[in-house]
């Protein structure tokens, strides 16, 4: 192993008891983190990232193997390790009822920062994080992005040599994410700090000097991300077929021989081939157009899993038991929102929002934290009355017929609003009853859900103990119990394993093709790519509403020939901030 490693693990194992079974979180980890750079610990939820971080910080005792940080045994010399490294846990570890300054003071006391040095260090950190104007504000009143920066500032008070960041960018909007990355890069460049950062966002891998790819408690691969992506270079194409909707095309291509991955991305389908030539399933299509694309880290990851014999499951086509005309139908508007406003006190959370969503369309609502997405979403669900404006859902005015409209909605969030201590079957039964299904109708829908989502094997198990992918299936089954024709999704697949995410979106695509209208709110750009149209919100208004491909095209600049959706998003938000300041 590398002699100069600042953090190293050998044969590291750790398991936890969950639901009466012992589950291995880390299953023989060997790795070395080199100093003076950002190393990414990349993997989906449940890969073992947090367990590894906690072991490195001496907060857990391993079942076997050893872990050393800064030359100290992290398990036996945990106090010495904790005195030397900086660690930001997933929830930032802030006291929400203390002010920004009080949090800083507390952590300065705890880390033994000498009083004369404090003023200068505080000023430096506040300037770096942009929190200087907010020092008197309670931490609980900060936005998600500001909390994350304050959490980071608290761990940096004593200038640690090694910084461990556990999923610092989760649940934070793209603008704040980018700011956090700028801070981390600066720490490495100017202070020579070594950073280990864990994330479930595969696109962040590309920002790291080196990545460790973790999956199901094992190290899949270690390397320089660009070099890893290059291994699938020349095997990726953007595929379109004129006159055919990208979702129908994707459904045809997914799982075909030679197709490693097929993914809806804006107006085209992104195909990863098993070989450097177009897969036969693509070339066989009439009038198909293909353009080579540069590889992404995610392509490599999916290809790696594919070589392991895992691939996105092939799916049945009639998922909801509905047979209906396919493809968005320009004639029928399912959701119509006009002049929508909502006030909280003297603050307009939503300030004049208008859009219409057609039947069978997948519509995305994007925005920074506090942009008014959640408020809009709640008003559309009929959970919050608007202060002004109209909402029509399925032809019903939500003001007068909220209950009727709601009966046609299904709702699902990534936070799985399931009852963790009820079994799978009990959850299904409960949600069926909650949607008013009884007798034979209910039994039929439960049988459908168990078969469709392959849940029957888990019937009696408490749903809290299910593997993550199955929890998500169960949540989706519950949301679809009453055959809704409108589906609301709240960040449904952020942090989910890329294969599970593909499976989920394959189901959503299939629903959309059968005429179910889907509304998604998210921070997660991958999810935004699945949408037909996106509304980008800031300060309660819609800044832009267009197809993802068109939004990306608008963001094209001389130095940025191929902007990502995130680039487009950030340009729009920053443009709005500048316009407001002017």
């Amino acid at each position, binding site marked *: 192993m590398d002699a100069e490693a600042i953090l190293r693990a050998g044969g590291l194992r750790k398991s936890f008891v969950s639901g009466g079974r012992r589950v291995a979180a880390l299953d023989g980890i060997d790795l070395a983190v080199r100093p003076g750079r950002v190393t990414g610990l990349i993997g989906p939820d449940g890969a073992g990232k947090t367990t590894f971080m906690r072991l490195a910080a001496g907060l857990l005792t391993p079942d076997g193997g050893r872990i050393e940080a800064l030359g100290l045994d992290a398990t036996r010399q945990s106090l010495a390790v904790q005195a030397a490294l900086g660690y930001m846990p997933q929830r930032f*570890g802030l*006291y929400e*009822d203390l002010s920004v300054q009080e949090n800083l*003071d*507390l952590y300065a*006391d*705890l880390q*033994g920062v000498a009083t004369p040095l404090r003023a200068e260090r505080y000023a430096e950190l506040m300037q770096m994080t942009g929190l200087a104007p907010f020092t008197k504000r309670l931490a609980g009143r900060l936005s998600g992005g500001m909390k994350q920066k304050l959490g980071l500032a608290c761990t940096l008070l004593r200038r640690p040599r090694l910084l461990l960041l556990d999923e610092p960018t989760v649940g934070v909007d793209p603008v704040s994410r980018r700011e956090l990355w700028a801070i981390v890069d600066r720490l490495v460049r100017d202070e020579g700090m070594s950073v280990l950062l864990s994330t479930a966002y595969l696109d962040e891998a590309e920002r790291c000097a080196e990545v460790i790819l973790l999956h199901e408690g094992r190290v899949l691969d270690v390397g320089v991300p660009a070099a890893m992506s290059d291994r699938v270079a020349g095997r990726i194409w953007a595929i379109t077929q004129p006159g055919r909707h990208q979702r129908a095309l994707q459904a045809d291509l997914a799982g075909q021989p030679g197709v490693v991955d097929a993914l809806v991305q804006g107006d085209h389908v992104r195909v990863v081939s098993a070989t450097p030539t177009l897969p036969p399933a693509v070339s066989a299509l009439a009038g198909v157009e293909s353009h080579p694309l540069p590889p992404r880290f995610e392509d490599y990851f999916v290809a790696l899993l594919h070589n392991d014999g895992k691939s996105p499951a092939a799916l049945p086509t009639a998922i909801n038991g509905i047979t209906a005309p396919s493809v968005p139908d320009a004639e029928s508007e399912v959701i119509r929102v006009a002049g929508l406003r909502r006030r909280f006190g003297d603050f307009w959370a939503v300030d004049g929002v208008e859009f219409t969503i057609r039947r069978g369309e997948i519509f995305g609502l994007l925005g920074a934290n506090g942009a008014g997405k959640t408020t809009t979403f709640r008003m559309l669900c009929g959970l919050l009355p608007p202060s002004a404006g109209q909402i029509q859902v399925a032809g019903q005015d939500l003001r007068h017929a909220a209950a009727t409209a709601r009966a046609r909605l299904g709702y699902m969030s990534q936070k799985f609003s399931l009852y963790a201590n009820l079994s799978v079957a009990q959850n299904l039964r409960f949600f069926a009853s909650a949607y008013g299904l009884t007798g034979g109708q209910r039994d039929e829908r439960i049988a459908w859900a168990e078969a469709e989502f392959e849940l029957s094997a888990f019937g009696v198990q408490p749903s809290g103990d299910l593997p993550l992918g199955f929890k998500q299936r169960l949540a989706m089954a519950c949301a679809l119990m009453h055959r809704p024709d409108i589906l609301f999704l709240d960040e449904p697949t952020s942090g989910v394993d890329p294969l599970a995410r593909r499976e989920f979106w394959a189901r959503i695509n299939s629903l959309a093709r059968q005429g179910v209208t889907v509304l998604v709110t998210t921070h997660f750009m991958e999810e935004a790519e699945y949408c037909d149209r996106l509304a980008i919100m800031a300060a309660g208004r819609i800044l832009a509403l267009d197809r993802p491909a068109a939004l990306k095209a608008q963001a094209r600049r001389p130095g940025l020939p191929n902007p990502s959706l995130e680039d487009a998003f950030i340009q729009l938000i920053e443009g709005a901030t500048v316009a407001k300041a002017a």
Partner: protein
Amino acid sequence: MNPGAGMRLSGLLKKEFLQILRDPSSIAIAFLMPLFLQLLFGFGVSLDADHVPIALVAEAPGPDSADFFASLEGTHYFAPQAMANMPEAEQALRRGDVKGILRLRANFAREIRQSEGAPIQLIVDGVDANTARIVIGYVEGAWGNWVTLRATRRGQDAHSPVTLQPRTWFNSELRSRNFLVPGLIAIIMTLIGALLTAMVMAREWERGTMEALMVTPASMTEVLLGKLGAYFLLGTGGLLLTVGLAVGLFEVPLRGSFWVLWGCASLFLLAALGMGLTISTLVRSQFVAGQIAILATFIPAFLLSGFIFDVDSMPPVVQAITHLVVARYFVAIVQTLFLAGNVWSVILPNALALALMATFFLGVTWRNARKRLD
């Protein structure tokens, strides 16, 4: 102690106080609950009989029966209501309008003049056993007084060669408030020490701040000392408030030394904090910690400490169990200190028990507290 411990400890203490000040539920449990309980037990709950409604039935009214009934009306214990006949009185008892019936039969006037004396009948509503027992006691007392008085008036000696002259010590007016209000100190300090402390520790786990504390150089002992210090002071504040109200508002005498009370209360508070912290090392959810604290500390302190129910009149098994209830030792000390004074034969053994229990629980906490998440 490690270097820098003083700075860390003062940082932790400052943090605890800021959190207490900003958290309405801490303030509610530490100051509003004591106030509420004091007012409730001081004014509302009373275990004394006062103006108990009672039906009087004289089947053949005459001067003798009128004289006896008049003696009952002179006390504040009863609110007598004269009724014409038994059926009417029985109905009133069934309706709950009266708690008892006192019946003088038709031959009362004749029998009272005979040597065997006159039997009188008392029917009480036994649903509330406590009040029933008090009614029986008072009626017996009133009857005895009246017979004696009557004999004296006639220049005769009473039948009995022995007369009982009761004296009540320590609480001469027999006000139940005088022993309830001091006992409340134990309840309030259990709330602050065990319930509040267990919940704020669990909150640190729930909000993920415990993980952040653990990766700082602060040792677990320092984290625990920070909690202990802050809530010890809060508990002392609760003590001062309760004693102040007891003496100032409810006029409960404090016959013993305040400083002895303060010392014993500190021992008890340490034991309660030890229990709270022990609970918090076992569970990491505020809800469960709160439930356990209520079941394991608050309810026993209420029911098994002698605060309301006398320990000596409990069944032997329950009496044995009360020895495990920390509040029991403190209630004994508090009631003695308030009503009797510095009775060292009571205070010392109970204080020793408190010291042992405080050592035990704090020891368990300290042993269990490791800087590990698993």
